[in-house]
């Protein structure tokens, strides 16, 4: 569209002048160089090197590394119980992240998309936790879950549910779930924002027409709103999944993987193995596993982001 317009507005020589612009042979690389160089050194090269290191047994200090092929992966799969706990926790976390923040975000977006007094301030309120660091979110929720003085147990006692109170973050059977709830509190904002943007693109007339035909709000949601939000939903699910697999800070701040490694994720277990137990080979192997899991969600996402160029 834009180029058609140019062709008619500017003299005929305009396009060919740019096309045959000699300075454009190297100049784009010059513009790109600073970003590409630092990005390649800081992000890409380490990724490749990590994959390579996952094929060695190494403590991170010794001058020689022993090549062991895929043994590190074998060890993780067969001898490392915590790896399986972490993998299972990542799966639980992922499912929760795909269900909770996304649906709450969609619900809030639909509710707050309509204009009423206070709709703007409500959006800010519900988005607010998303601007806090996960370390801070973790610290705040650790107080909420404090066994004696925390808000949760206090409220439960006042409601006569004293028998159900517990030390939420120290109970090995459930400790992961309070952390997921805290993470959800932080994660709702982004889907809400993206859905609000998506809702703006739906023409009002569609809803008006449906109302005239006598469609109920629920029908309008199922047959108009949701189908038109399909693209937004794909982006939301991909971003939420990728972020869920990156979770780390909040575990570190709330449980540090405990009790008894029951809240380890692949990300935290990688840290423990590498930096506390000097098992660099196993640590990098976990990183590769984590990255492969991310790719399942990331490849469709990247395809989508690069589609219409």
């Amino acid at each position: 569209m834009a180029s058609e317009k140019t062709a008619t507005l500017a003299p005929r020589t305009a396009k060919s002048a740019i096309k045959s612009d000699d300075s454009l042979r190297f100049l784009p690389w010059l513009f790109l160089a600073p970003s590409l160089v630092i990005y390649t050194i800081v992000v890409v090269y380490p990724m490749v090197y990590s994959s390579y290191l996952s094929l060695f047994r190494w403590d991170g200090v010794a001058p020689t590394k022993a090549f062991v092929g895929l043994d590190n992966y074998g060890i993780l799969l067969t001898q490392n119980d915590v790896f399986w706990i972490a993998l299972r926790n990542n799966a639980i976390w992922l499912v929760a992240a795909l269900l909770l923040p996304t649906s709450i975000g969609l619900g809030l977006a639909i509710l707050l998309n309509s204009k009423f007094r206070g709709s703007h301030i409500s959006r800010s309120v519900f988005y607010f936790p998303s601007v806090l660091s996960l370390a801070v979110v973790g610290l705040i929720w650790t107080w909420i879950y404090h066994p004696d003085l925390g808000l949760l147990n206090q409220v439960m006692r006042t409601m006569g549910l004293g028998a159900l109170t517990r030390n939420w973050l120290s109970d090995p059977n459930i400790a992961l779930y309070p952390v997921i709830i805290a993470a959800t509190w932080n994660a709702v904002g982004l889907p809400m924002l993206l859905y609000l943007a998506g809702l703006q693109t739906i023409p009002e007339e569609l809803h008006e027409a449906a109302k005239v035909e006598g469609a109920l709000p629920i029908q309008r949601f199922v047959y108009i709103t949701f189908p038109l939000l399909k693209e937004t939903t794909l982006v939301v699910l991909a971003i939420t999944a990728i972020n869920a697999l990156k979770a780390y800070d909040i575990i570190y701040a709330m449980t540090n993987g405990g009790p008894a490694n029951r809240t380890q994720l692949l990300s935290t277990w990688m840290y423990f193995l590498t930096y506390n137990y000097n098992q660099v080979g196993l640590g990098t192997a976990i990183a590769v596993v984590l990255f492969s899991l991310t790719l399942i969600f990331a490849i469709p996402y990247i395809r989508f982001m690069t589609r219409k160029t």
Partner: protein
Amino acid sequence: MSQQISRNALLPGKAKVVIFYVALILATLFWLAPVITLILTALKDAGDFAVNGAFSFPKSIRWENFSEAWETGVKNYFWNSVIVTGFKVPIGIVLESMAAFALTHMHFRWADRVFTYILIGLIVPMQMTLVPLTLLMNALNLIDTLTGLTILYIGFGVPFGVLVMRGFFRTVPVAIIEAARIDGCSWFKIFYRIALPLAIPAVVSLCILDGVATWNEFILAQIFLRSDELRTLPLGLVQFSTQFSTQYDQLAAAVLISVVPIVLVFLFFQRYFVAGMGGAVK
């Protein structure tokens, strides 16, 4: 919303509106309960907290919590965060917008491939880079320096920055660029005299999103900063919480101090959050 509600004939319109607002206010309070708890805890003394718990009004307000937390180390953490964010964000934005400009307006044959290569960085879990980065930073003597950390932040910021700026530059009409080119304007001039001034809204959005992300970053700071006096806020706070695990009043005050700049930015530049995220998805 109120219109929609009043159309329903089951209840009188007024009553429905009242019910709606009561529900909304309750939901808001519920949502903010953790933050309210935090503020109440920061304002009371430790004894009050130990007796009455977090969610009760302070017997007397104790402002000293803030000054004590500030002097116990938060001051250092705060300024470290300011330094790192203050260098990372502007440098990053200059690099990222140059790259994004080349990808959108310079008739660059490799644009799509380079953009895909850059996008990979958005999805990489930090863990995938930690060990080689440790070796690299060690070799360059950059472990435990704010300079080293800032360089890493700039590198990790490239994908998101390029994504946002590219989304914006795509909306700049080609005609403007071509007209300037025909008038004999050099590409560097076109970039900083025409494209960049047009992109001010995108630059502000990116500044804010990037500033918040840098302010909040945890894992790289945790790995690459070793000494206490160099820690940034998120890392310092977590450390503070393990060291002074029972001094909830001071810890809450420390957390609150770390959150204040974010809250101010959020209140004043809210619409840019929306614009920035929109640019990232377009």
